[in-house]
C-alpha cells in the first residue's frame, strides 16, 4: 500500500515532459512574434533601407561641403556638452532639495513635474511668444523698465541656440531630477545618521555618502540623456525652426530639413555620420542594462 502511495507523485515520464516543454516553448515563440514583427517591419527594414539610401559616397561629399552641416555638428556638440551637463548638475542639486521632507516641498515637486507631463508643442510655443521682439512679454517688460527696445532674441544665432538649450532643460529637467530623487531615496538613512554622529557637514554628507551612491546612476543618466538629446527635434524646431539663416540646426533637425527639401540621400547621410557618436553610447547603455 505504502509503495503505491510513494509511487503516485513520481514525475511523469520524460517523453511527456519534453512534449510539455515544447508546448510552452511553442507558445513562448508565438507570443514574441508580435514584437518581432514590429521590430522587423518598422526598425530593421527602415534602418537597412536607410543605410542603402545613404550608400553613395557623393552624398557625403555634398554633405560636408554644405556649411549648414558643419554648423549643425558644432551646435549639436554645444548642446550635448553644455545643456546636458548643466541639466544633470542642476538635477543633482534639486534632487537633494526634493528629498528634504517639508509639506510645501511636496507641493513644489508636484508642480515641478508639469513641463515633463505636458506636451512640447504648446509650452515651447509659449516660450517662443515670450521672446517675440515686438510684443513678447520679455521685451515689453524691458521697455517698461528702461524705455529701450529689447533685443530680437531669436534673430541672433547664438542667443537662439542658447534659448533652445533653455527650452530643452526646462522640458527634461523634471524627469532626470525624479530619477536622481529615486536614487537618493534608495540610500539607507543609517548612513546619513552615522555621518551626523561623526559631525559631518552637509557638504561632507554629500561628498562621502550621497555622491558615492549616486555616481553610477548619474553617469548612466548623463549618457542616456545624451542619446535622447541627439534625437531632440522639438526644442530647436519649435523654438527657432533652425533659423535664423539655418544657423541653429542640430543633427536632429538637419535630417528632417533635408527630407523636407526632398534630399533624402543627404538626409540619411547626415544621420549616418552621427553613428560613430551614437553607437558607442548605445553599446555602453546596452552593456549596462542587459547585465
Amino acid at each position, binding site marked *: 500500500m505504502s509503495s503505491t502511495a510513494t509511487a503516485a507523485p513520481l514525475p511523469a515520464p520524460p517523453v511527456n515532459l519534453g512534449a510539455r516543454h515544447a508546448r510552452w516553448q511553442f507558445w513562448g515563440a508565438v507570443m514574441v512574434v508580435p514584437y518581432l514583427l514590429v*521590430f522587423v517591419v518598422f*526598425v530593421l527594414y527602415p534602418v537597412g533601407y536607410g543605410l542603402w539610401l545613404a550608400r553613395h559616397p557623393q552624398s557625403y561629399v555634398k554633405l560636408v561641403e554644405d556649411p549648414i552641416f558643419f554648423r549643425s555638428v558644432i551646435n549639436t556638440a554645444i548642446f550635448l556638452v553644455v545643456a546636458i551637463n548643466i541639466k544633470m548638475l542642476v538635477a543633482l542639486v534639486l534632487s537633494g532639495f526634493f528629498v528634504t521632507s517639508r509639506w510645501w516641498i511636496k507641493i513644489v515637486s508636484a508642480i515641478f513635474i508639469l513641463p515633463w507631463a505636458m506636451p512640447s508643442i504648446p509650452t515651447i510655443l509659449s516660450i517662443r511668444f515670450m521672446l517675440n521682439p515686438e510684443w513678447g512679454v520679455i521685451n515689453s517688460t524691458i521697455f517698461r523698465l528702461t524705455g529701450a527696445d529689447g533685443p530680437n532674441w531669436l534673430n541672433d544665432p547664438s542667443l537662439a541656440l542658447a534659448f533652445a538649450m533653455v527650452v530643452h532643460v526646462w522640458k527634461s529637467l523634471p524627469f532626470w531630477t525624479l*530619477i536622481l530623487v529615486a536614487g537618493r531615496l534608495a540610500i539607507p538613512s543609517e548612513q546619513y545618521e552615522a555621518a551626523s554622529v561623526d559631525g559631518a557637514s552637509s557638504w561632507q554628507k554629500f561628498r562621502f555618502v550621497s555622491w558615492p551612491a549616486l555616481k553610477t546612476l548619474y553617469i548612466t543618466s548623463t549618457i542616456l540623456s545624451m542619446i535622447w538629446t541627439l534625437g*531632440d527635434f522639438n526644442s530647436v524646431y519649435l523654438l527657432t525652426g533652425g533659423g535664423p539663416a539655418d544657423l541653429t540646426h542640430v543633427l536632429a533637425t538637419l535630417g528632417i530639413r533635408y527630407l523636407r527639401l526632398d534630399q533624402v540621400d543627404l538626409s540619411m547621410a547626415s544621420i549616418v555620420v552621427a553613428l560613430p557618436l551614437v553607437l558607442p553610447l548605445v553599446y555602453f547603455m546596452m552593456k549596462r542594462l542587459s547585465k
Partner: protein
Amino acid sequence: MKRWTPKAIATEARLLLIGIPVLLWTLIPVYHMVLFAISSKDSATSGHLWPKNPTLDNFRIVFQQKHFYLDHFWLQLWNSLLIAVSVGALTLFVATTAAFAISRLRVRGGRTVMNLALFTYFIPAAFLAVPMYKTMGNYGLLNSQWALILAMVTIASPYCIWVLKQASDKLPYELDEAARMDGASPLQLFRLVYLPLMVPSLVAVGTYSLLLAWNEYLYAFLLLSNDRSVTLAVALGNFLSADDSPWELLMATGLIYAMPPAAIYYAFKRYMVGGLTAGAVKS
C-alpha cells in the same frame, strides 16, 4: 511643535531660496500660456502680467470652430484621442506578450529579443524618423493614421517590454509551477495568473504609451498631412506657418491639448513614477 531657532530659520530660508526660483522657472511658460488663452486679441500682446478683462471667448471660438485654423478642431481632437488609445492598446498587447514569453515562458532567444528592444529604445527618435518616413511611403501607409499608430507602437513598446520584464522577473516562480501542476496551459497561466498580478505595471506602461502618442509632434507631422486626419499637435504646429497667427487662439487650443496628459499624469502618478523610475534606477 517645531521650534524656530535661528538655525532652523536659516535652513528654511535656504530651502525657500531654491524652492521659489524652481516654482517661477517651472510656471512662467505655463502661466504665459494661460494668460494668452484668457486674453482678448488686443490685450494678449500688450505685455501685461494679468489681462485687463479676462475672457473665456477664445475657448468659445475654439469649441465652435469659428476660425479657419480651427475648422476641424473637434475632428483633430478626436484623431489625437483615437490614435493615443490605439497606440496604448496595441503597445500593451505587443509588450505584455513579449515580456511574458521572455520572463515567464523563458522562450529560447528571449535575451536576443530583449536586446533588439533595448537597441530600438536607444535609437534617437529623430534619427529613426527619416527612414521610418521613407518606409511608410514604401508600405503605402503615408497619410494614413495607421502609419502614425504603428510608428508610435514601435517607439513605445521597447521601453514597455523593458519595464514589464523587470516587474515580471519579480513575480515568484512558484506561481507558475503551481499553475503547471494544476495543468494550466500557457495561455491560462497568462490570463488567469500573470495579467491580474501585473495590473499596476500594465497601468503604468499603458499610460506611458498613451501619453507618448498623444504628445508626439515630429512623427505626426511627418506621417500625416491631411487636415482631416492630423492630430491636434500637427494642427497647432500649422499655426506657425503664418505671420499673423491668432496667438491667443493657439494658446487656448494648446491649453486644451495639454490638459488631458497633465491630468492623467497626476491621476496615475503613483503607478507612473514607480514604474518609470524603476527601469532607470536599476541600472
